[in-house]
């Protein structure tokens, strides 16, 4: 079992290297061999990570080169599979597999580099989840980063992808270097890079300025990847222009990995040393709530099918951060389930958008209005996934959101529930409006967005002209993803199992003992007690409520022009949104300015409250 840990990263890297080296051998005639090999590799890696998730027990630790810790001092480099970390990596593997199956017929002409980059991306994500070494966390951050930047700019002959990739690469690299500076500082203080060792060295001392500064630097770098306000600008640009199957991974796995990094670093290194749980919790909660609301408002204004989904990713990243920020086992468990549910339905939505692009040659909601009637199956899957995104039971999303709300409520934060419901309604409403208009021709076409005309002309070349039918290999992946989202939501005892994994994740002492002493810790204990995980009427009610609210909002936004009262009332208000949109300027220097400002504000807030 333990040897699977390095293999999950090494196998995709080796196959990627082999594919690039043998690129001349793969011609159009034997495309099936290339795609088959890549799909098999991704599926095999997913299976390995699944086995680690289920069989990890307390946790599996692998030391490279056999450099085990001597007398509790770790000099070697380790991979650690705990149920949450291996589970997230396995989920990323599943999405890569689905995206690769979809890509088979989506790209008629594609070089081996696409497949190689996807596999390197997978290796980077798996390594990021599994590593127990904080410097390797930075290295895998950049490994998955470089693959992702290159995949964004896969169509290098076009303007949009180039600009999106430049913005993505520059902002994320600045974030990575800030993290690295924090890592160097914490190494200077503790002389250790192993996260458990750092945690042990920091614990028991009063947190001084250096520890706070390094925590802030590391966390801000990771929050850039997690697209949290005010570091979120790159997400909309990158996800608007990257090929649809690649967007599945950006939205469903990569952004979430940034949040996983924050959780990993907090609960293995800084948690017990920093103390001041209240201050850290409120700072992160405020960031999460701001991200959820800002993302949802921008989402609703979009007319570009992929940008709608991109801003929904930002909004959901904020909701996940709120779950993590509660610092309770149930909050973290809710966030984990929400990540899986969201990744599955959002993946289906991006793939359906890819099918629209393939068959109808446009991504403009206004132009497409009613033209999607030719794609009844895609339309049905899109609407279903949209309802799942609005947290309709039994999609797994309602359970994840319900747990976050319960945990917030029982800790005296009922406003968390309000924020989550409002953002779910806005985001779900935007997606359902697009789906209802495009696939069913409901209501009136939304007003034309002048900016769309320039952008839309470029989208054609993402995929080649579709022939009369959508290939089965393109319809099946979104169908399977939506079905899985329902299946996960119906799993019995899911809540208690995931909460047990969350307790283990938050128990710094158990992590230390497992990594440094090789102990098997049977009873993990989180700083906050676990909470009941029974499915309550409130969970179902808020889920149904936000889905119904989203459906109503979608219908109102499709039909409002037919009601004179609304027309007179709403038309002037829409003009106010213009100035806000200017912040999303597309200029990377602005984005980096926001990063510096955000760093100063978050650093100032935490430094004042912790000292």
């Amino acid at each position, binding site marked *: 079992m333990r040897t699977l840990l390095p293999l999950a990263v090494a196998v995709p890297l080796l196959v990627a290297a082999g594919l690039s080296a043998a690129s001349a051998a793969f011609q159009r005639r034997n495309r099936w061999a290339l795609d088959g090999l890549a799909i098999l590799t991704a599926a095999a890696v997913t299976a390995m990570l699944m086995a680690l998730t289920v069989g990890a027990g307390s946790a599996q630790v692998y030391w490279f080169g056999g450099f085990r810790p001597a007398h509790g001092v770790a000099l070697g480099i380790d991979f650690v599979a705990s149920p949450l970390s291996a589970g997230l990596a396995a989920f990323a593997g599943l999405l890569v597999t689905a995206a690769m199956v979809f890509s088979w017929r989506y790209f008629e002409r594609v070089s081996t580099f696409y497949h190689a980059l996807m596999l390197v991306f997978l290796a980077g994500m798996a390594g990021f989840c599994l590593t127990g070494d904080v*410097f390797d966390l930075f*290295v895998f951050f*950049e490994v998955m*980063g*470089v693959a992702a*930047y*290159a995949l964004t*700019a896969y169509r*290098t*002959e*076009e*303007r*949009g992808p*180039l*600009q*999106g*990739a*430049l*913005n993505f*690469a*520059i902002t994320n*690299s*600045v974030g*990575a*270097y800030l993290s*690295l*500076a924090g890592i*160097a*500082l914490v*190494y*200077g203080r503790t002389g250790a*890079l192993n996260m458990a060792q750092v945690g042990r060295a920091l614990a028991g001392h009063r947190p001084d300025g250096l520890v706070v500064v390094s925590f802030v630097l590391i966390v801000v770098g990771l929050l850039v990847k997690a697209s949290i306000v005010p570091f979120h600008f790159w997400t*909309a*640009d990158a996800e*608007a*222009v990257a090929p649809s199957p690649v967007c599945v991974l950006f939205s469903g796995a990569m952004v979430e990995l940034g949040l996983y990094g924050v959780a990993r670093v907090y609960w293995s290194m800084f948690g017990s040393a920093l103390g001041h749980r209240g201050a850290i919790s409120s700072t992160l909660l405020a960031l999460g709530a701001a991200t959820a609301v800002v993302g949802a408002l921008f989402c609703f*204004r979009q007319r570009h099918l992929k940008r709608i989904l991109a801003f929904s990713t930002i909004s959901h990243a904020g909701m996940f951060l709120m779950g993590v920020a509660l610092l309770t086992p149930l909050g973290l468990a809710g966030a984990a389930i929400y990540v899986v549910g969201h990744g599955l339905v959002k993946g289906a939505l991006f793939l359906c958008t890819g099918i629209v692009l393939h068959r109808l040659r446009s991504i403009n909601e206004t132009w497409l209005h009613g033209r999607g009637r030719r794609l009844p199956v895609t339309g049905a899957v899109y609407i279903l996934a949209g309802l799942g995104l609005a947290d309709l039971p039994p999609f797994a999303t309602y359970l994840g959101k319900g747990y976050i709300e319960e945990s917030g409520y029982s800790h005296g934060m009922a406003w968390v529930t309000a924020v989550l419901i409002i953002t779910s309604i806005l985001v779900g409403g935007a997606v359902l409006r697009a789906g209802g208009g495009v696939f069913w021709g409901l209501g009136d076409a939304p007003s034309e967005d002048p*900016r769309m005309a*320039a*952008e839309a002309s*470029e989208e054609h070349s993402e995929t080649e002209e579709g022939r009369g039918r959508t290939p089965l290999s393109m319809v099946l992946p979104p169908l399977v993803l939506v079905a899985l989202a329902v299946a996960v939501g119906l799993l019995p005892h899911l809540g208690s199992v995931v909460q047990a994994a969350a307790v283990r994740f938050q128990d710094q002492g158990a992590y230390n003992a497992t990594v440094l002493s090789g102990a098997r810790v049977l009873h993990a204990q989180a700083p906050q007690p676990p909470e009941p995980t029974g499915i309550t009427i409130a969970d179902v009610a808020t889920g149904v409520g936000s889905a119904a609210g989203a459906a109503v909002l979608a219908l109102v936004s499709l039909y409002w022009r037919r009601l004179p009262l609304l027309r007179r009332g709403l038309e002037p208000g829409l003009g106010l949104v213009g100035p806000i*949109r*200017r912040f*999303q*300027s*597309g*200029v*990377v*220097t602005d984005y*980096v*300015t926001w990063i*510096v400002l955000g760093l100063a504000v978050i650093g100032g807030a935490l430094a004042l409250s912790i000292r």
Partner: protein
Amino acid sequence: MQIFPFIVVAWILAVGLYGIVTSRHLVHLIICLAVVQSSTYVLLLGVGYKAGAAAPFFSDIPRSTPAVDPVVQALALTDVVVEAAVSALLLALAVQAHKRFGTLDPEDLRQLQG
């Protein structure tokens, strides 16, 4: 550990970030990104430095000789490799951007907005 290297680190980081934030040319911006990263090299080496200690090669000196920390040097080297990969990719994107947009001013890349 002295305070001096950390002042240098903060200075390089601030200069690099200022350069990125005010940049009007993509190549200049990418070099500034490399400057930001250089601050981490200095930080890493500064963290592992010991006054009067030898380089960490023990082939011709006794093993008990005090030496500077070799780990940070390995980290700085890895850091350089990462930087090479990122800069190469970014410069390639800049070349393409120049071909397609006819400009390298980030403020004139106006394909994505709102």
